[in-house]
């Protein structure tokens, strides 16, 4: 980014350059360095108290039995207790569905407004709306979808009137993993749009022209140029979407109560009352989430690094 250097600033910059040695040697001296780190003390104190200690306590208590003795039992239970396996399976499934589905649709939408030749005004409109929708989640989102496709929802009533059927009598329900996926998509694909838009903007026109000059077709361009460049961004964004859905709690809870047995909902229930009848198991459950989220972040960061090779 360009710095606004007026005449006055410029002279100062020169002075600074001249004094560079004096100014920059000092902070690197050990004593002064130590004082500099002291300036970050409040921030790190906060992080330790409200991020690291709670995480550490979850980690430690995952390996403790009721009496506080060391045990692997809780971790083993994660892979053997049926309710927990189901919860993880459910959470992973919905995250996968909405990450892939939201990723594909979000990509197509970003492509449509940026490279599809649509009027420019639609593009800024979509980006604004994506900013809003990706932040619009939780209880109000769940209620909006109940009003849309719930028993008395607008879409439900329309379908019932048009086809003259009663969806409820047919045993049709939206309060399952597929219904919840539709709800999650509302914040998932706008997030994809927000991530893909700058990446698509970063595709240089020269690359396409070079391809065309060499006799390449549209298919060649996508197969050999655009897709390989975009792929790390696309995959990275999908991983982010995956984590986004995996950690969601409020939307699912407000939408279906505890009907859909997600890991987050199980943890919430464990907080409100020891539903697993084993505090250590609750901690192990939470630890499992942290591990999976960490893996997604590692995946995201490494793909991000690859993506920035061509796009910045």
């Amino acid at each position, binding site marked *: 980014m360009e710095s606004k250097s007026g005449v006055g600033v410029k002279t100062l910059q020169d002075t600074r350059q001249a004094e560079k040695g004096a100014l920059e040697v000092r902070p690197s001296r050990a004593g002064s360095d130590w004082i500099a*780190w002291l300036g970050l003390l409040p921030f790190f104190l906060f992080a330790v108290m409200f991020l690291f200690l709670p995480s550490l306590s979850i980690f430690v208590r995952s390996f403790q039995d009721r009496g506080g003795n060391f045990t692997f039992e809780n971790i083993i239970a994660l892979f053997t207790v049926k309710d927990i396996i189901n919860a993880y399976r459910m959470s992973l499934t919905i995250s996968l569905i909405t990450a892939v589905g939201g990723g594909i649709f979000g990509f197509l939408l970003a492509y449509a407004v940026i490279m599809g030749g649509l009027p420019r005004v639609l593009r800024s409109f979509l980006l604004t709306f994506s900013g809003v929708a990706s932040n619009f989640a939780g209880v109000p989102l769940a209620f909006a979808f*109940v009003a849309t496709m719930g028993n008395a929802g*607008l879409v439900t009533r329309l379908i019932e009137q048009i086809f003259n059927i009663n969806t409820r009598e047919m045993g049709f329900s939206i309060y399952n993993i597929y219904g919840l996926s539709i709800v999650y998509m509302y914040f998932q694909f706008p997030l994809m749009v927000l991530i893909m838009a700058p990446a698509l903007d970063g595709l240089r026109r020269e690359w396409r022209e070079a391809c065309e000059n060499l006799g390449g077709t549209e298919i060649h361009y996508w197969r050999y140029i655009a897709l390989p460049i975009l792929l790390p961004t696309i995959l990275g964004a999908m991983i982010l979407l995956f984590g986004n859905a995996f950690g969601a709690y409020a939307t699912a809870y407000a939408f279906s109560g505890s009907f859909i047995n997600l890991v987050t909902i199980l943890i919430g229930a464990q907080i409100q009352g020891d539903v697993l009848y084993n505090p250590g198991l609750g901690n192990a459950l939470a630890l499992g989430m942290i591990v999976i989220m960490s893996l997604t972040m590692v995946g995201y960061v490494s793909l991000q690094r690859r993506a920035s090779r061509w796009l910045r």
Partner: protein
Amino acid sequence: MRRVNLLAWFVFMLGMIYFFLPLFSTFEFSLRMKKGVYSFEAYRVAFQDPGFYYNFGSSLLWAALTILCSILLVVPTAYWVHWRLPKARPIVEFVTLMPFVIPAVVLTFGLIRLYGGPPLILTATPIPLIAGYVVLSLPYMYRSVDAGLRAIDIRTLTEAALSLGAGWGTIITQVILPNIRVAILSGVFLTFAIVMGEYVFASLLGWPAFAYYLEEIGAMRAYTPQALSLVSFGITWSMMMLIQWIGRGTRGAEQVAAAH
């Protein structure tokens, strides 16, 4: 290269239907409180409930406290990293991204288990609640402020102020803050939108909040929850518009959020 962009239009329209249908349905639903006619009865009822004002007011208070703490924590830290400790940047950035690794419900779990009993009992105070909200706001606040600081020549400004005899208080309030006002404000508005819609911390830590109230009445009544859902959407929408409006003319105002 003018190709038929029918497919692009189709995808766009599909997206718009997906965006607006739930909003329209919610609006239509909220108007149906009186049998047979459309009316704003649900809104009248919703705004008459003292519980709404109590919980909405509480959320406003939490938002204000969160914003205050977040600014006090992030601005000096980001400034210090830019001015004295560039090598601390990766560590600080890592910490600000932690909320993406630890979901809100897991953090709440940890906070309750850690501060719900001796030696340090905090769960009787709103401290864990505000701390949780500050953690949620960290990625957005830090990224905003960091981008703001990057756009100005922080070294030159600080050294100029120092050489003119300014103290640290003057430098922060008179030199740095006015220069990163827009960056701070976009962080503030996003934090406001997040806290006003946040449900997990408030409900599990047991504090009144707008989203908690919304969920409560949603379990008991119809129509009014939908009316208030639209109010909530309006808050998010207006905060995003404010961010765009104050950020006009500056680059890189896009916000990517996560963690619901």
